[in-house]
């Protein structure tokens, strides 16, 4: 059963991703990307990451991509703004070929992975918000704090960059 869900979700994820890079219309791509994101959220749920499932939907689908769609509309981007890309399939093929060693290496590396754990979680409530919060504030305090700095930087950055042009 789980395998079937996984297959469906992964199919969606892949289709969405492929669609995202294939569509020439920006809006279509963005919508296609949402499919992937949602599929991934489903996969997180399959992987006992219930909190992440939520976050994925809220942040990605809800915030990031929406923001992007908002920008697209805000800038009033129309079809003619999209660049002409006659060679994009050939390009993709070439990139895919160049990519082969990397993928091979990654697969090979995971195949040789030492047998540390297994894929059946024994821990109860694995992945729920309590456990996550506990771990986050006990074991990952520093990154968590620095993430806030990062967000601050991004905040200033986007203000600086997107602010209306100032007078000389």
């Amino acid at each position, binding site marked *: 059963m789980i395998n079937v869900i996984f297959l469906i979700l992964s199919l969606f994820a892949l289709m969405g991703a492929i669609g995202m890079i294939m569509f020439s219309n920006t809006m279509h791509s963005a919508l296609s990307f949402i499919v992937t994101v949602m599929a991934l959220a489903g996969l997180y749920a399959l992987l006992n990451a219930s909190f992440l499932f939520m976050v994925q939907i809220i942040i990605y689908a809800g915030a990031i991509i929406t923001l992007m769609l908002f920008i697209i509309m805000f800038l009033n981007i129309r079809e003619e703004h999209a660049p002409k890309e006659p060679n994009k399939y050939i390009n993709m093929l070439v990139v895919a070929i160049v990519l082969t060693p990397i993928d091979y290496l990654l697969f090979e590396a995971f195949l040789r992975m030492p047998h540390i754990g297994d894929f059946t979680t024994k821990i109860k409530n694995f992945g729920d918000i309590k456990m996550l919060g506990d771990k986050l504030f006990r074991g990952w305090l520093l990154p968590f704090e620095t993430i806030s700095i990062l967000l601050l930087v991004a905040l*200033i950055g986007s203000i600086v960059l997107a602010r209306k042009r100032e007078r000389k």
Partner: protein
Amino acid sequence: MKYDDIIYLLPLLSIGVGAIVLMLLSPIKKFSIDKLSWVALFFLIVSFATNALNFGMVYSIAPYAHLFSYMLVSDTFSGYFNSIIIAGGIVTVLVGTHYFDKSNMLRGEVFSLLLFAVFGMLLLVQSNELFTSFIALEIASISLYVLIGFQKNNVRRIEGSFRYLILGSMASIMFLLGVTLIYAGTKSTNILNIASYLSSHKTEDMTLTIVGGTLILITFLFKIAAFPFQNWSMDAYEGAPLPITAFMASTFKVAIFGFILRFVLVDFHELKNIWSDILFYVAILTMIYGSFLAIFQTSLKRMLAASSIVHTGYLLIAFVSIGSIGESAATSIIFYLIAYFLSSMGAFGMLSYIASSDHLRVTYEDFRGFSHVRPYMAAMMSIFLLSLAGIPSTIGFIGKFYIFIGAIESGYTILAIVGILATFVSVYYYFKLIALMYFYPSPEMKGKIPPLRGIPPLVIGIMAILIIWGGIGNTLVSYFPGIDFLIDTAKFAYQSLFMG
């Protein structure tokens, strides 16, 4: 919980606090750029001072180890790099304020972002955990992306920023993938845990870790602009405002090296020579590519950017030899970083000071007859160029000396020879500028060049003196640190890595 651990956090904290304070102050109209720069300077100096408290000792402490789960470390090594990075920040503020002031599109947020970048870099060399490093790297990078594109109505700035952003994100993702693979391989992202895992397992079990390490190395190579990941640097350096270019070219590189040295020496201590073969070619190609690129430039900014690729190549020579002679190679890298920091910071700083009025591109031709207009500035510029070229009596020579001798010691004589050839080519493009400054009659440009007054020239002059002192200084003058002192400090820094 020990409260005196706070002292090891102070450098980081004061920068962070400073950045936030500046962020809050910057929208206030009353605070001019000048005033903000003093605020920034205050926090930087506090940070520098608190960092200097532990100078001269070999120590390694994980402050608030329990709280931070050993993710943060403060040792001589980080202290050493911290001081360079903070100094980079100080110099950028001191020299750059003039530029920021003159090009009135830059606003107060620039100091906030600069301090955030410094914060990210400090964290980068102090973090003992890969994901924290990643965040630190992102903090620094994003600050820099924004700083480059700050003058957003200038298409060159925006373009440089955007290109750097795309490629930098690609590199960051490689880093993240590397971290993930290492996590997959060792079930931890803490450097010490990884090191102990690696030393207790067979190589066959380490495939994931090695691949992950390689991906991190690729990011490192990208950030220091090594071949074949160098293309962005020319565009980003040229696109950025000059003080930011200076900051990027010298300080960021230092921070990156601080991180990768800790990573390779501590983490991959057992495996550090697995990359020697490929890094060998990377080093050679980096030097050759940089030389080719630098030799025909007309814009000085581009020339310095290209030459910074060459200097990356020199550093990689030492990085290659880390595999066989860890200590002296690492020491030589640390020393060379100081040398390069001083020289390139000085050269870029000088350019930014000169260009602050109205030049966007500073070309060779702009310097024709410069020595007749501003003799002292020309002399300082010459010192920086000579140091970059590695002419004796400058710190650049000593740095190259260590690098080459390390290469020969570890059996990479070929690298030393290629390095020599690159140096030889570099003489051409550095001396061309000196020739232009000195050998032509005085031009009609006196009005445009800012006078030799104020803080920026003073700072640049101090750096020139440091370069000379680093090149000839010795222990003859009692109680005054010379070259030996610098080397010993670098050695302490190296040793402190293995105390944790």
